[in-house]
């Protein structure tokens, strides 16, 4: 402006004409001007930490923007890398503490209040109790039904152990030969008998030998050797589990504890790398699977039944001074299997580590070797287990579990000696679990 006139700039700026022109536009609306240049963000392809962060953020926003659950799962699992394979039925020592660390689970002995053994399951006073429809206590079963269940269970035990003429089982196949048919019969007969008290069981789906798998990331490690030395890598885990049978339902079970409630117990922290457990890495398909694909309407879990390994022999563990490892192995089995199942259920609903759960996911499990039964409940409160998402995450997953209880003492001359009613009552209580509104 000063250029056409020969006056110096500062003198022009102080002239009245100039000042008027400058102040003239203040009473009108400011014109919105589009940024002339794109925002300044780090590069995508550079070899820098900010570029890596940008790539990760782009990946996360791509997952968030995925149109369907199948797409989300595909994006989360498409890249194959070496990962630790977690076996729920493991023989490693003190595996339950390690598994609790990997899954951020707190273990509470006993069962949640809903299943406390004092609560009455069988109604002894009244002869007939109307089934659940509008009843006061929905978890009460008729005395007749309970005695019928007792005889069903007794007959199941006797059929496999006494009446059915069997050959000697092949080596290390005793569970499959003797216990597996008994457990199948037990689950299907008790579920059918209790269907009139729990309408959820009528709509359920009973799978035999399903595959349950889960893939997650927890913790980080610095690569020590190799061409990637010095880089920080997340630690990946995969569980591929095959329970004996499981019940899947179309509606979600109710939570045992509210989501925000904090539990006093602590998650054990293990400072060693997972390969010290020992646990080994492999690279193969990353699967997230509850037992059937996403399109199945029964996408929530109810109860899983696990058979222990053939190599899990109590007398051998006691003889080798490892009596406490009996409980450890059962707990490890329950924690790993139930975490995988509930985690997969949550991912089927679209939650993942960066979009954490808005409601807890709950499932139950029974681990047995035919004679000893243990009952476990699991509540998944958080999937945010990566280092980035875990920084301000106070939530913990909770697992409740009982010690193992004997269902019967022995089978003698066509009679089951010492059939334990408490175990049956717990089993009935487990299977009667249903959402409040049903």
């Amino acid at each position: 402006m000063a250029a056409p006139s020969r006056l110096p700039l500062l003198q022009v700026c102080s002239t009245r004409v100039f000042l008027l022109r400058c102040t003239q536009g203040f009473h009108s609306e400011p014109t919105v001007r589009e940024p002339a240049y794109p925002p300044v963000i780090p590069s995508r392809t550079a070899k820098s930490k900010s570029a890596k962060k940008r790539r990760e953020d782009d990946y996360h926003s791509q997952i968030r923007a995925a149109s369907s659950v199948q797409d989300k799962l595909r994006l989360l699992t498409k890249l194959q890398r070496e990962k630790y394979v977690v076996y729920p039925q493991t023989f490693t020592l003190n595996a339950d503490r390690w598994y609790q660390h990997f899954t951020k689970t707190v273990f509470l002995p006993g069962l949640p209040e809903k299943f406390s053994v004092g609560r009455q399951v069988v109604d002894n006073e009244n002869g007939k109790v109307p089934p659940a429809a509008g009843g006061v206590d929905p978890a009460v079963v008729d005395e007749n039904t309970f005695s019928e269940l007792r005889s069903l269970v007794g007959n199941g035990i006797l059929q496999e152990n006494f009446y059915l003429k069997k050959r000697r089982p092949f080596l290390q196949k005793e569970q499959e030969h003797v216990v597996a048919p008994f457990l199948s019969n037990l689950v299907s007969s008790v579920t059918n008998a209790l269907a009139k008290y729990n309408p959820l069981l009528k709509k359920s789906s009973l799978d035999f030998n399903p595959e349950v798998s889960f893939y997650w990331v927890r913790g980080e490690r610095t690569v020590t050797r190799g061409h990637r030395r010095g880089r920080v890598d997340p630690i990946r885990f995969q569980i591929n589990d095959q329970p004996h049978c499981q019940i899947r339902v179309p509606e979600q079970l109710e939570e045992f504890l509210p989501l925000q409630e904090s539990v006093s117990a602590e998650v054990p922290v293990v400072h060693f790398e997972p390969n010290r457990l020992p646990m080994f890495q492999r690279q193969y398909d990353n699967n997230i699977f509850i037992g059937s694909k996403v399109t199945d309407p029964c996408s929530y879990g109810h109860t899983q039944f696990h058979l222990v390994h053939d190599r899990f022999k109590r007398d051998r563990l006691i003889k080798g001074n490892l009596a406490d490892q009996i409980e450890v192995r059962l707990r490890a089995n329950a924690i790993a299997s139930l975490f995988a199942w509930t985690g997969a259920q949550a991912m089927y609903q679209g939650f993942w580590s960066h979009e954490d759960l808005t409601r807890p996911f709950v499932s139950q499990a029974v681990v047995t070797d035919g004679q000893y039964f243990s009952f476990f409940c699991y509540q998944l409160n958080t999937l945010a287990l990566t280092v980035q998402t875990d920084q301000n995450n106070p939530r913990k997953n909770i697992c409740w579990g009982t010690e193992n209880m004997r269902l019967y003492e022995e089978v003698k001359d066509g009679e089951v000696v010492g059939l334990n009613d408490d175990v049956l009552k717990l089993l009935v209580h487990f299977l009667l679990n249903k959402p409040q509104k049903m």
Partner: protein
Amino acid sequence: MSKVLLNGVRSNEPMLLSVQIGNAARSAFLNYSHSRRCDVGGRRFFSVTCSLFGRGPPSRKEKKTVEIPGLDRVTYADRMHFVPGLAKPIFPDWQRDWHDPHHYRGPNNEEMKLYKENPCYVFNQRTKILEGVRQALWLTKSKLIQGLPEHILALAEDPANQIEDQDERVQQAIRHSRFWDTTAIRPKRDRFCPVLFRDLLHLCGTLQVKHTSLSKRILAENYRVAALWNRESDVFQVRGLNGMLLNSMTPLPAVAQSGEVLATENHTLETFYPISPTIDLQCTYVYDQKNDTGFREGYPYPHTHTLFFTETEDSAAKFKPEQLRAKMIMFAFGNALARAKSLYGEHPQVLEHPVVVQSVATDGRLFQFIVLQLNTTDLGPDTGVKNLVWMDQDQLLYDYAKCRPLIKKKVVTVPAGLSGYQPETFKKFLALHLHGAV
């Protein structure tokens, strides 16, 4: 079967076909070479020192030693070397003075404890008989009636006996078994067949809410049946593992009344000369004559209800529909006969209360239904009262269950997913399940 390992073969001739012979060729060879010495394709070696299958060293033709009574044979045994003109000495067979399990030749048939002069023709779970249903009817002295009995089918037509949303739930079961049960695109037949069967049984079990007598049943897997009978001077047996058995506390009511039963006396059994009725049955001279239901005395569920057959992983046990129906008839008959003999004794007689056994077989899509009524255990002569078999064959449960649509010339001929569902087949399944309990 595992791959054949070439460890070191005694013969100097090249191993022509030992490695390349696949299962199909080997089984084809074994089926068609009835003569013992057939060196064309190879034979199995039971020795531990060489490979498993091959042509082996050429068998040397032994010169017959001529025994003239009264004359001693002059041999070169004393000379300790071959002398031309003298006879070859016959030395006694050398026996190892200790028992070596790797070099043990079992006793000949004639020396076995259970050797009998008359052969027995055994039907086991892998037998595929040439004439199929006709041969099975002759062997079991039965009359065939096409179609299931009316009063059984009427059980499923009654709306009180139907499951809620029956068609929808059966279709969900089919989709679960055919599409959703695996992390791969589609499960294999030996996976989806038993899964579909278990799902359908679970659906039928939910009817226990309405009909409590359905609880008086139990499934038995891996049981072995044994039944023995004579037919026109030949001895027949049905033996071994067969399928899954549903046992019940109460017997099935007789399907055909006594009038119809007596009318079968006029029916003549169909023969198929020149084929012998014992074709394809395993002929054995060493057998135990026993009739065994597979369960001990005092079993709480003594009455057979239904026998289920599903496709298994065993490639040798894949059946064509005709042979599968024959197997169903034979094993249903075997179970019925074993039970009749345990109830009424070994003496051949016409039964006052006929024994009824049902059988269902499936390959995941086609269903075969059979109801067998055992009227008589007097099976020796061809005349007299016959047993009755009602058969409903090749019932499709659905037309197509495709993961990818079938497109011919750019037109979708069969869409992806389940198509062509036929509700009648499940109604028959349900009717057979409810028979005896309603």
